[in-house]
């Protein structure tokens, strides 16, 4: 990971959670990232977490796994995350965005539940996505040992 790589080599895995068919943000985020020079492996809507893990196995140089969840089912749809991580899979920052609980109030407890599953970053909006990816990328290329 310490080889200096150009932007064009950057790759991410993108998709929408298993029970979720909301496609519009997925289309737009894919296009936005491609415009920023990323290679986007877009798994589309209704993607089980295991499929994200499979995709990462096929594309091990992916910087992050980006998951949208718009229908309120994030927690249920990501329940397999601890299990997959325990099995040594999905070992890349998992970035989650969308409407992260049923109902019109997302509480801190709702977000904590998701972090407890192992979600690394939660973004309310896709606007900050490239910035976050750049930060993660810079951090990953730091020589110092990483924590957590």
């Amino acid at each position: 990971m310490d080889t200096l790589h150009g932007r064009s080599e950057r790759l991410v895995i993108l998709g929408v959670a298993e029970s979720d068919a909301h496609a519009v943000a997925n289309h737009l985020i894919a296009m936005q990232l491609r415009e920023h020079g990323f290679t986007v492996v877009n798994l589309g809507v209704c993607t089980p977490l295991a499929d994200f893990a499979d995709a990462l196995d096929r594309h091990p140089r992916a910087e992050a796994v980006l998951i949208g969840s718009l229908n309120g089912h994030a927690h249920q749809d990501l329940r397999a995350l601890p299990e997959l991580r325990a099995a040594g899979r999905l070992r890349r920052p998992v970035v989650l965005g969308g409407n992260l609980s049923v109902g019109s109030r997302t509480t801190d407890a709702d977000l904590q539940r998701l972090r407890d599953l192992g979600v690394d970053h939660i973004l309310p909006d896709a606007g900050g996505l490239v910035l976050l990816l750049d930060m993660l990328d810079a951090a990953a290329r730091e020589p110092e040992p990483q924590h957590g």
Partner: protein
Amino acid sequence: MADLHGLEISARTAAALPDWDDTVAYLASRPLPAVEVLRAADAAARPVVQPRCGVGGHGEMLGLLRELESAGPGILSVTIDSHTRLLRFDTASALLRRRPADLNGYPLVTHGWQRGRELTEAVAVPLEVRHGSPDGRDLFAVALAAGITSYEGGGIGYNLPYSKDVPLAHSLRAWQQVDALCGTLAASGVVVDRELFGTLTAVLVPPSTSLAVAVLEAVAAAREGVRCLSVAYPQGGEPHQDIAALRAVRSLAARYLDPAVEVFPVLHEFMGVFPRTPEYAGLLILQGGLLARLGGAAKVVSKTVQEAYGIPDAAANAAGVRTAALGTSDLLDFVRYDESRVAEEQHWIEREVAELVDPVLADGDLFAAVETAFAEGRLDIPFSASVHARSRVVPRRDRDGAIRYADSGSLPFSRAVLRRNAALLRDPEGARPRSLIDAATADIHYFLDKESRLPLRAPYGANSDTPPRY
């Protein structure tokens, strides 16, 4: 697999069902089926209002329906959770046991038809099941047994926006069975209202795309004996275009359907990115009611001021029903509009629909023709969730906010149609050039942008009870 008068359903679902005769008798005994509400609204030229509503728990669902009924809707919904939609009944059932509030709808298959009947009997107005299941057969069987007289969906509109990889051949056949059972029921005097989900992916759907899909599904349904069709069109945001599209439902029905089929235009209130200020959201909801009436809809499906935030609470949902109802009420009877502009829009919508559906209908095998057309992009929808539509179509708003085709991909449009769309989208002299995707993104956020330009500087004050996003 079990067979319920031609409806192939899972053995597990079938085993739990009551006798078919019992179901038919129960349906026939419902005092007010949906079709009658629609007929009355149509005769009165005032659309009834219907909210979406569904929560996981049964007691909560009963309470929700009762609370909403007091807001005066004409029809109430049982909105189904996403797991049930995608036939993952086991997940729905596990979640129902563990944390029912985590379900984004009512898992009717899991709750079963007996509880369904409790819902039906809890309120005086009829219920409709709204879901988004590419294969809604099991759910339909349970809904019928529950005495529910209106059922939404279709082989295209409940596939492409709602799933990733269900072949159209599969969904069209599944819905063919649903329609055929409606035909059987109609023969024994029970008319089920079948609503077609012209809303599709909801965001920037050009009217002719919505209506073309609805025409194809309607023709398929009518062939199977369906007698009552509600054709839903989603409010796009430009009033003349919206009125024209609703009017086109009737003229298209006259052109493509047997007059024995009752067709009711339905307006789905704005289904795109909703404004966040309660007053602005409220105006859009009110306007939906008004446009529904002006366009001759028999029903309007209401939204709420919490749309931008999440599934609404009961109070906001009830307020949405009232607001939409006010939009349909005689308080706005003084409103006129530019009839000739509407007539012009309607002409072109009908022409575009004809150019889309006529080649498909000309084929002897409707389902195969639909599938090939989508595969080849001769039929298409923007922002498809499914890999079975190409989504090469790029919609944009023109200067008045009407939705046009900026790129129509491989749609078989005539030069006249293409010219008109291009002309309407021509940027004004000196406009800074934007990529198509930037333009479409801006158009998706049309009402948000309008909102930010209005002098509504404090969308949420300290005392407001609509929550900010985290």
